[in-house]
């Protein structure tokens, strides 16, 4: 039979503010997704050099590379600025993008999604909760449209 103290402790644990290590891991997760998306675009360019959208793919790929580097550097620095609930949303969005990329083979969908990942990475680097949540909405919209 849990005591009142146990229940209170469990409630506190469930609502605790993410630690700096959580933040670092969330940034590292997003960097992985950005890097993975960039690699898929790179492979697309290499395998379809005559495709009409290779230029767009290259631009997105280079932007994602820079974002992945910045996210990893930021993760090491362990910013420490709590993004609260936005952090859980960010992790969830990163996972959904990764799942989508694993299943989706059409490049059109990947390009749309890659743009939204660029936006999410930018928001995560700024560390502003409002910006992250807006970017998460854009990722969900891109997932739906793709």
């Amino acid at each position, binding site marked *: 039979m849990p005591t009142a103290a146990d229940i209170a402790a469990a409630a506190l644990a469930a609502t605790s503010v993410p630690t*700096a*290590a959580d933040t*670092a*891991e969330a940034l*590292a*997760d997003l*960097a*992985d997704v950005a*890097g*993975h998306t*960039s*690699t898929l675009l*790179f*492979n697309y360019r*290499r395998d379809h*050099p005559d495709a009409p959208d290779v230029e767009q793919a*290259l631009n997105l790929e280079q932007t994602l*590379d*820079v974002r*992945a*580097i*910045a996210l*990893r*550097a930021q*993760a*090491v*620095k*362990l*910013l*420490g600025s709590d993004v609260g609930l936005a952090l859980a949303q960010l992790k969830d969005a990163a996972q959904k993008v990764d799942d989508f990329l694993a299943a989706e083979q059409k490049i059109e969908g990947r390009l749309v999604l890659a743009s939204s990942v660029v936006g999410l990475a930018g928001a995560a680097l700024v560390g502003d909760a409002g910006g992250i949540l807006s970017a998460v909405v854009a990722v969900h919209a891109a997932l739906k449209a793709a």
Partner: protein
Amino acid sequence: MSKRLLIAVLAACLGGCAAQMQPVADFGAAANHVAIAYHPFAADMGVSCEQRERYVALANPGPFDDAAAERAAAATCAPLKEAGATAALFGQALGDYATALVKASGAKAAVFDADLKGLSGAAAALATKDGTPIFDSSKVSAASKIARAAAALFTEAKIQVLTRQTLADNHDALVVTVDAMKTYADRIYTGQLTTTRGVMTGELDRLVRASTAPTQSEVESRLPWRYAQAAARADIAANELQARRVRAFDKAADALVAAHSDLIANFDKIGGARRLELVSEFVAQAQAISDDAAAL
């Protein structure tokens, strides 16, 4: 008590004390070995990033100048080199603490003795980072704490004799420091390795496809793609080995924390040739990192 008897008792006590500290010496040497194994992870993140950039540059249309591609990759990946140097400080703090424990134990480490050097000065390096946004402040405090404890063990004669309290006082800081090292190694550095490997394996597949020579007369023109496969395979193998070393480091890091707890819990129970099980397990895990590294 006669003077001769007193000397004999003191000699016995000293011998006993040294024997009692053998697990501490072995723990310290193995912990230092883990810190040494971690060091390349910190330095390699930028290198791995540059490697990926160069593979991409090789495959891009337009003119290609190898030297220019190298410079561009270095510039693009510079933030990761800087981050790696920062991450290295955690390992330095652990290495200093571990080295100081060996010295304070009064015993000679049975393993990894050749690895042991003096202090790296992590305490001073971390002090300059304190109060800046380089690290989360609680982690800087933890790494600084064990680095300062190391400096104290080395320089303050009054605490040359290791006590259970010294270990207990630094345990939480040790756990936080090792946890930060694990986060860096298995979340951030491994992510970079995976990203780089993705590009390299794709390129290797294309090299294999481009190497097809339907007739004998076409073999000559395909040779560059055939030769290039060996270099790409070696790069991928080195990348995979680093990933395995991170996994071995991860296990050793967990064993390190468990062994440190074991030393605290059994500080006054160990004696003579008796070994602590968790310290022995930790030494074995630290050895496993070296075994795989020998293949590099």
